[in-house]
């Protein structure tokens, strides 16, 4: 059983940043009804996540991986009648999880740090030439000196400073 006298009642202030006032959520289920990831296993139910945040259930929330199922379609964002911004709730929770448990930090952040991209944009030269394109696209992958400046910029961010072993140039 959960002892509600021992939960972190200030948790919502810690987590919410970009979303609306989640105290207005009245569990109407609109954010679940139109959500593709609500069909997942386990399902993503934003309204349940909102409850966990409001009740201050830190441990349960830190273990809950469902926010990462979100497909980012923003249907919930459009439909929530209370301006809670459920999609932003989802991202706020992911950020809080990443901050409190580094294993949540997506590998894609390190890829972007290393190459500027989430795909091997510089390593598909034959494929690109075959369709009549420049072997390397004119993005940051083509300009190593810019990539260096980009990495220097990111070195000053909290995530890279606090987890520098993850980010290699």
């Amino acid at each position, binding site marked *: 059983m959960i002892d509600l006298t021992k939960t972190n009642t200030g948790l919502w202030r810690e987590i919410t*940043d*970009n979303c609306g006032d989640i105290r207005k959520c009245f569990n109407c289920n609109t954010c679940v009804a139109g959500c*593709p*990831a609500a*069909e*997942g*296993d386990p399902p993503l139910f934003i309204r349940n996540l909102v409850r966990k945040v409001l009740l201050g259930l830190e441990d349960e929330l830190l273990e809950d*991986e469902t926010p*990462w*199922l*979100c*497909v*980012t*379609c*923003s*249907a919930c*964002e*459009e439909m929530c009648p209370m301006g809670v911004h459920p999609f932003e709730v989802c*991202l706020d929770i*992911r*950020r809080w999880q*990443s*901050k409190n448990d580094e294993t*949540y*930090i*997506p590998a*894609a*952040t390190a*890829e*972007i740090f290393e190459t*500027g*991209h*989430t*795909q*091997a*944009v510089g390593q*598909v030269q034959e*494929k*690109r030439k*075959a*369709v*009549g*394109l420049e072997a390397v*696209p*004119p*993005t*940051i992958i*083509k*300009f190593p000196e*810019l990539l260096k*400046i*980009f990495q*220097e*910029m*990111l070195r*000053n*961010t*909290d*995530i*890279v400073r606090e987890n520098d072993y993850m980010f290699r140039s």
Partner: protein
Amino acid sequence: MKYGLFLGCNVPAVRPDVERAIRLTMPVLGADLVDLEGSACCPAFGSFPSADETASLAISAWNFCIAEEAEVDLVTECGSCYSSLRIARSKLLESEEKREQVNRLLEPTGKQFRGTVKVRHMLDVLFNDIGPEKIRESIKYPLENISAIVQYPCHTLFPSEIVGFDSLSGRPRMFQKLVEALGASVQTYSRELQCCGGAGGFVKGSFADASEFAFKKLRAIKKETDAEFIVASCITCLQHLDRMQDELNKKNNDNAYSLPVFDYNQILAVCMDFNPGEVASISTISRDEFIRNIRKK
């Protein structure tokens, strides 16, 4: 008309034939594309936006600065890039605090975010700046007597306040009109506005359920329409609806789902008589026969 072509990661790496189609078709319609040299990932929602907001906004701002220096609005085909950049821009414009944090990070790079350029989706430019009439006049092979369904990119619909450009995000019709301009008829069906389900962590985190979600859409298309092909305008929709037909066939152990899937600029390029080997050469479900039939007419 001049635009900065924002490539992102998936288009140039996974489906460069889409990039080729965009680069060939847009200038024909009077839209000149400028390269955004040195641009990076948007960044994708599943990367920095899920870990560090300020770092994420700094990367978006890096991209905006490149477009600001070139004095062009950004245009992108990828739904995720579009939405990520739009949301980042509105956050930067709304909050002086975030703007200052980001500009502090940018300072040593010699860049500064000013907020002078906009982010546009390909469909927005095609419909609102160019228009169906001009597109109709530009093609050599019209898609007469061919029916299509369109996959609206969810990231261009919601949240309408931030990303919307269709008159009604809840009942969009622009994409349909753009496909009709190519001569095809467009059919609607019950799950038309349901997103493809291919973005984010759903497919990776819950593959069987994510597949089933896409199968429902594919079954509805088959049951409710006699569409002969699918048109998308988002790299994720394009790849996912293509791949999921293959998955469904594997599951059923047959070949019942074989609708060719095109990005809009790809089918436009084929209709304009560009080389299909360059503009529509990468897919799981073969598009060759469909393309041959168009070019026979």
